[in-house]
């Protein structure tokens, strides 16, 4: 999509495995902003997001030798490293909060959920050029993708918190992707 992505995944993998400055430069210039966007959506403070994104690059750099191109796409692999690192950070942070404060209720109803997203959105105003494509999705689809992809909830947790059956999660996720697909086409 970006004009800078002019290397095929195959070439990029070969380049990264060389582990030289040229490889790092290419990786950073082409992928840093997207990966940072993912991290920012999960870690809602600029200060902490900066910490996490550094770790993400170190991990990509370290584990590129373990990447198996037969099993998936490099870009997706990198995004998932960013997601996992940010989600882990989020978990450890909320664990600390839980120790400090009174225990959080497991059940969050829809209103609280929306309030929370509103707060997060205000926090996200910290970031330069923050664009939330998902806002254009139907609310019930958006919340599913956000909870799964950016908040790391499991199917069971989502079903509990939104009070919907597991089967509905599957069909709504499918619907969300169909919507997203048409939306993304418009952006091209």
């Amino acid at each position: 999509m970006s004009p800078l992505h002019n290397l095929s995944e195959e070439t990029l993998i070969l380049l990264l495995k060389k582990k030289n400055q040229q490889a790092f430069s290419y990786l950073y210039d082409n992928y840093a902003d997207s990966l940072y966007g993912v991290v920012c959506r999960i870690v809602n403070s600029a200060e902490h997001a900066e910490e996490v994104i550094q770790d993400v690059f170190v991990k990509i750099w370290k584990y590129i030798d373990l990447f198996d191109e037969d099993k998936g796409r490099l870009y997706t692999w990198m995004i998932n490293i960013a997601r996992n690192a940010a989600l882990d950070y989020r978990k450890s942070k909320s664990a600390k909060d839980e120790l400090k404060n009174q225990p959080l209720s497991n059940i969050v109803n829809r209103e609280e959920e929306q309030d929370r997203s509103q707060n997060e959105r205000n926090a996200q105003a910290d970031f330069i050029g923050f664009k939330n494509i998902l806002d254009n999705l139907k609310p019930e689809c958006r919340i599913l993708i956000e909870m799964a992809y950016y908040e790391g909830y499991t199917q069971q947790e989502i079903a509990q918190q939104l009070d919907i059956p597991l089967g509905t999660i599957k069909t709504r996720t499918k619907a969300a992707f169909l919507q997203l697909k048409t939306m993304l086409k418009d952006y091209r």
Partner: protein
Amino acid sequence: MDIEAYISSGIIELYVLGLASEEEVSILNCIRQNNSAVDLAITEAEKMLEDLAELQAVAMPMPLKEKIWTRLKSENLITEDEQSDLGPIVPTVTKQPVGELPNSIAEEKPTEMVPVRTYGWAIAASLLFVLSAGANLFFYQQQKENSQMLAQANAQLDSQQATLAVLQDKWTLVQNPAIKTISLKGIESKPDLHAIVYWDQQSKAVFLSLEHMPLPPKGKQYQLWAMVDGKPVSAGVFPVAAKAQMASKMLDVAKAQAFAITLEDEGGKPAPTLTELCVMGSI
């Protein structure tokens, strides 16, 4: 498995979002290796999330590039271009981080999952493969049995239909009011034998069915005789190819007082061999 239904079930979307259970993931990985449509659907869904990441990119704070590069250097994760000229140093420098990998994997939680999961998938995939091979064998054998049974049933049906056709044939003969039915009974030495002659009184046509007669030995044929005024007149031989119980058309007989059957050499004889007399019946 119905691949279309599998693809449209939403499982692929759950997978790319990280929502699929480990069991679902291992099944999906096994299927994608053997089915390009599933593989393509996964790649498409992944590309969508890549596009989303691209569109939702956030500009990195400026100094970070230099900062990360310095960190990689300090952690000895760089292959310096100058070093490649130094020859022997290269292996030790580049090998160090690789040697460190197992430790760092144990320390760092998210990436710890990578190799473990990979083995998990491999094991699950092999198990699935063995299961599916077993299932294939089982279904193959069952299918073989089924087709044998089907062939048997078909053969049975064929023979029953043939019998029915014979009976229907005879039934139409018997129903015809012009037909006279003459029962030919076994002679004293062969009391079980039985044959029936259907004689059309109008057209003079004669039909013969061997109800209970042993199959003639090779080279022999049953020959039907009409007794006309005390003299035997040949009414033809019973066709070798015909089914015994089928009413086979013989030669026309204009006038007769009795019928008899002898066992003769193939093709029949002009005069009956009386020692080979099997059945007879008078009108």
